[in-house]
């Protein structure tokens, strides 16, 4: 085990090394991010002006669907798994992931799954056109024939996620170095442990709901067909039982990343470590009992509306604990504003805005007004873009010197941050206004009344997209060369990953370190 990586292309096909697999996850995720971004730009180009200019409405529907699916399952989730692969073994002092071959399998399923899913765009009848939430009967009775391949793609990417989560749980619970007690683990490890439990609990439910679709479409079952005694609303319940924990799957690891970065650049230990752990666990628990807040308008008993409304608002409490802890960590710190810190501070501010619009949406009577408008689009993009995407970007800048041994270009990093920051606010902030004024989501045309704000949104989207090219360029040129990074990289950062050389050796901690 003492030797380095194998030579040639098969290194990547046959590898059992957590760093190789982490890199593959991250590159795959970035490729999907660009693809999903192109889909988004098709949407924004069409919405630049009212009327139908560029694409057919049917294709527009395929774009909104594929943008959501590719970003959720192809970009955000694999990026977090990639970071988990790279960092968790180094953070807990383990030689590798617990089950290295299964780890490679988890990754290599994904390119096949997405090749199959994206290929549906070229099939007869087009790709999935029913929105990323694929509500029945749009996704069953009225779906294109390619929906079968969409279903099977979801099945195997679910298998990949479950295997990945099992690996992460086994690594964290079984592979920690002596002395690394649970309450000494970095928060990124904690948040991922809890995320992995969420994944294992809900990915099988997603598999269940797509199986019900498959049976309804091809074998005449009546799960979602009232004529046989079923109910399309059943689809929404099962889907959102998966779907709501899923949105926390896309944000809890982000909390972990930001909780690593802010203390480093505030030069103070994280404020309220244990409350962060308990808050994360509380959010995860609550995520299982709030799903129907996505469905206030489908018809529910008043008691159900009230329960899901109050349970949802309760989530603001542990989330508030987190936000106040980050702010308190920065309070009177000797702060510097390197690129990872800029992204993290923007995360705290913008994610909070997304959280507040979430509270507005949680109020059941108000939601009757907001439902299916651009206000919802603005809300979940405010939690996902500055939430998930910014934290992933922050994590990449933060750990990149450790991965490849070179410092990235700070000026270019800051430029990317400001372009992305301005671009994202320009894109999504106006959506609050058009949404409140009644502009519906998933429609390729709109009233002229909304024209100005939509033009702004579209310009912001292209700016945000351009900023990502800078990230790509910066990462590649850092890998190729640049100023050498020290082993610590930053000033006194906390964590075992900074005790190993930069770049991190191919095998770290073959003998476990002693943690005091």
């Amino acid at each position: 085990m003492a030797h380095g990586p194998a030579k040639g292309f098969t290194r990547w096909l046959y590898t059992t090394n957590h760093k190789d697999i982490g890199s593959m996850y991250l590159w795959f995720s970035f490729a999907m991010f660009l693809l999903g971004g192109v889909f988004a730009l098709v949407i924004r180009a069409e919405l630049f002006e009212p009327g139908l200019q560029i694409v057919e409405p049917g294709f527009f529907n395929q774009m909104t669907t594929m943008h959501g699916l590719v970003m959720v399952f192809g970009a955000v989730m694999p990026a977090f798994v990639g970071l988990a692969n790279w960092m968790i073994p180094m953070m807990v002092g383990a030689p590798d992931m617990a089950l290295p071959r299964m780890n490679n399998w988890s990754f290599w399923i994904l390119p096949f799954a997405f090749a199959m899913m994206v290929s549906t765009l070229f099939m007869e009848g087009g790709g999935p056109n029913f929105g990323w939430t694929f509500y029945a009967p749009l996704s069953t009775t009225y779906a294109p024939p390619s929906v079968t391949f969409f279903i099977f793609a979801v099945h195997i990417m679910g298998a990949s996620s479950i295997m990945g989560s099992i690996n992460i749980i086994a690594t964290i619970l079984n592979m920690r170095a002596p002395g690394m007690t649970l309450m000494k683990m970095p928060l990124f490890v904690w948040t991922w442990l809890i995320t992995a439990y969420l994944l294992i609990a809900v990915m099988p439910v997603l598999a269940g709901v797509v199986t019900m679709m498959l049976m309804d479409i091809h074998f005449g079952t009546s799960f979602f067909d009232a004529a046989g005694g079923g109910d399309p609303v059943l689809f929404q319940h099962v889907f959102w039982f998966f779907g709501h924990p899923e949105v926390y799957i896309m944000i809890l690891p982000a909390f972990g990343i930001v909780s690593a970065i802010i203390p480093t650049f505030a030069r103070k230990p994280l404020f309220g470590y244990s409350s962060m752990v308990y808050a994360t666990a509380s959010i995860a628990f609550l995520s299982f009992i709030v799903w129907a807040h996505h469905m206030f308008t489908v018809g529910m008993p008043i008691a159900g509306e009230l329960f899901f409304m109050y349970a949802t608002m309760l989530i603001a409490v542990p989330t508030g604990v987190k936000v106040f802890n980050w702010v308190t960590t920065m309070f009177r710190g000797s702060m510097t504003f390197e690129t990872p810190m800029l992204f993290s501070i923007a995360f705290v501010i913008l994610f909070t805005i997304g959280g507040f619009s979430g509270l507005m949406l949680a109020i059941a009577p108000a939601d009757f007004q907001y439902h299916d408008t651009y206000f919802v689009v603005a809300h979940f993009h405010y939690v996902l873009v500055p939430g998930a995407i910014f934290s992933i970007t922050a994590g990449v800048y933060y750990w990149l010197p450790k991965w490849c041994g070179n410092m990235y270009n700070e000026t270019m990093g800051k430029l990317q941050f400001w372009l992305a920051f301005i671009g994202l606010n320009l894109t999504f902030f106006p959506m609050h206004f058009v949404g409140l004024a009644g502009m519906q989501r998933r429609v390729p045309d709109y009233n002229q009344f909304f024209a100005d704000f939509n033009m702004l949104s579209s310009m912001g989207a292209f700016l945000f997209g351009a900023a990502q090219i800078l990230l790509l360029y910066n990462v590649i040129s850092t890998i190729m060369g640049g100023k050498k990074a020290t082993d610590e990289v930053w000033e006194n950062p906390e964590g075992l990953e900074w005790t190993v050389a930069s770049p991190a050796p191919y095998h770290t901690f073959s003998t476990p370190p002693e943690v005091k």
Partner: protein
Amino acid sequence: MAGEGTYYVPEQSKLPIFASLGLFLTVFGAGSWINGGSPTTFVVGFGVMAIVLWCWFSIVITENMAGLNDAQLKRSYVWGMGWFIFSEVMFFAAFFGALYYIRHISLPELGGDNTTNQILWSGFTEVWPLMTTPDMAVNGANAKVLGPDINMSVTTAESIFTWLPFWNTTVLLTSSVTVHFAHTALKNHNKKGFNLWLGITVALGIIFLFLQAAEYIHAYDENLKINTGVYGTTFFMLTGFHGAHVTLGTFMLLVMWLRSVLKGHFKHEDCFGFEAASWYWHFVDVVWVGLFIFVYILG
């Protein structure tokens, strides 16, 4: 958590990439087949998967016999199997949840005294098992979704001993006990007893599958099919997925039995393969108890 010995990190492996390819061919082939194409790709993919899994398990067994797996690595396998079973529990939870929703929310709504019923499904009344679908109640002879002619629930308390699901339950519960006896025998260094009790368990698993097949043939003869409304849907989906898991569990136990009888595998302190298969077996047993209560008794 502390490491004793060196944790075994395997060298490069061709298994995962071929497993991914096999899985892809299997599901892509299944999709093409269902959409009206030929089953060839599916069969090829299934074959690739079978070969890869055969190689994968045999490599893991060889590594274990070579002494590469320390106690810590074995704990990783225990965690892995445990959480895999939990994910299976959640898969079944989705279908049990659907059954609950249909019986207690969807059907009362369709047959209740409300506008949905008056406008769309007038004449439909809610009963379970659902023999007359809403479609039949409204469209009579023109209905497309027809209900079944029979249901599988027990009719009277006296008839329980001639009721097939009762015997299915007996067989499966007994098999959970016999697999436990096999485990105890192994722990007591009684290899003969282990082989005997494990063999009995496999036989009981096969008997269960035959009984379940008889149940299905009976159902189809009496027009209880998967497409006969939501009773047929939930009945066949729940018992069908359970049957598939019993098939897999029986196959796992059979492999363990063959390993023990033919190759002399498993010692009292080194028997994870068998233990994992037996946990899986207990899990399918518990699912059956849930089925027996919610599909058959309360059905």
